[in-house]
């Protein structure tokens, strides 16, 4: 983020945080958390092979590609 974005956002985030901090007013010490509306466990699909994307299709939207691979900026430091 730029300095001007940070200046504008810092104040806004303060206001938002104090508003959402209302959740702390609720006495919920012994209440279990809900992460998901539909409790589901161990969902499997049939283990059958199906066609995936070809290399050409997968690379079609790549910012840069080379030799059937995604070409990315350097991921290691110089030293």
């Amino acid at each position, binding site marked *: 983020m730029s300095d001007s974005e940070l200046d504008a956002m810092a104040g806004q985030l303060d206001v938002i945080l104090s508003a959402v901090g209302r959740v702390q007013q609720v006495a919920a010490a012994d209440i279990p958390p809900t992460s998901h509306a539909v409790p589901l466990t161990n969902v499997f699909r049939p283990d059958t092979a199906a066609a995936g994307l070809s290399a050409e299709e997968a690379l079609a*939207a790549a910012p840069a590609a080379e030799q059937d691979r995604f070409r990315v900026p350097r991921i290691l430091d110089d030293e």
Partner: protein
Amino acid sequence: MTPELTRLTAVETAAKIAAREVTAVEVAQAHLDRIAEVNGTLNAFLHIDTDGALTQAKRVDAGEVEGPLAGVPLALKDVIVTRNVPTTAGSKILEGWIPPYDATIVERMRDAGIVVLGKTNMDEFAMGSSTEHSAYGAAHNPWDLERTPGGSGGGSSAAVAGFLAPLGIGTDTGGSIRQPAAVTGTVGTKPTYGGVSRYGLIAFSSSLDQAGPCARTVLDAALLHAVIAGHDPRDSTSIDADVPPVVDAARDGDVSGMRVGVVKEFAGEGYQDGVTVRFEEAVATLAGLGADVVEVSCPHFDYALAAYYLIAPSEASSNLARYDAMRYGLRVGDDGDASAEEVMAATRAAGFGAEVKRRIMLGTYALSAGYYDAYYGQAQKVRTLITRDFENAFTTVDVLVSPTTPTTAFKLGERVDDPLAMYLADLCTIPSNLYGGPAMSVPCGLSDDGLPVGFQVMAPVLADDRLYRVGAALERATGSDRLLEQVTNL
């Protein structure tokens, strides 16, 4: 050109095509002409897929595909991926992206003969209540061009209300189908979470996101709901159960003996008088039709907005990490010298808008060590309490009702610099997302400011048919399906 074709409902359109009174190509062309005429004013569509629409219409005319919505045009929210058709989710970071696959609901709509006209405008990554957070400019409300058509799905609601398409698809994480429906005088449903596949829905908050129908009538919405709903093995959160009988319920519309609970917490201060008046009239109408109306208290609904603005940004901060400039989407600053990390930072700085950045910051903060328990953890507990409020209420009533939004459509620019004021637009819609149950907004007349008011119906998980029963009853009694005839300024 046959402009009157754009004024028909989906049911009427399909009937005319099936009876060969008109071809699907003529219907598609009439809508494409209408879009060409007024989209410059409304900014409802970001991309118009003329070739795709006409190709699909020809398939319908050739008899290759049949069904109750065969040949009916549709406006698709740009958060749903479409093979070979640009998909941006309203963000610069996905500008020009051509997805290599179709969402499940896109496949289902194609198999049903629905004609997708193009992709509609939305707040970036569905974060907003006005479309002003779209990277491609705000959409405008056909009732008053200076006002918002709601958000995030304001492009679809504007398209449906402005007669650019009889049907639309929206997605609803905190109200993004229902609030736009309310402020444009259209019908919008958030199905039960897991009722409609999320495969191919670009993720904002995965435990809350749900796609659903937008339409000008309750029956049209039900028919579209029936097309897109049902189990999908490609979405692990998809519910493996029969689709609720939404179409039968919309045709029936009998509420006699139905127990309707008015949510006590969603009234009073902050609610526009004109909204309250129309809402109370609609409740009285339902009572007059034989429904058993009682007041119900859901004490934790007052904390839903706060819990939502912790849970949704937390999930978003994780989901949006995928925009890393490596495999698709925007890449900025790759000069051969910069590191991957520098390129990622430059890309995200350039590609994300202010609201997305705000929510990533907020979510990252809420999830960070030391703050997790006080914010995200506590919000999840409040989510449990809200779910319990619903479950308690549904032991005594069949549906809960409230206004969909506290106010009618606000003016563009009015709230864009005040994030909290913007968030309040979703005050009444958020609880159903946290709980996972279905909810609908159906028009219940005009406020004294001449703008539409939305009536929200909320039902238990997998009881989506009850929404359509109540919605159809109200629509018949109030004639709300003819409300949009008053939109004549385009």
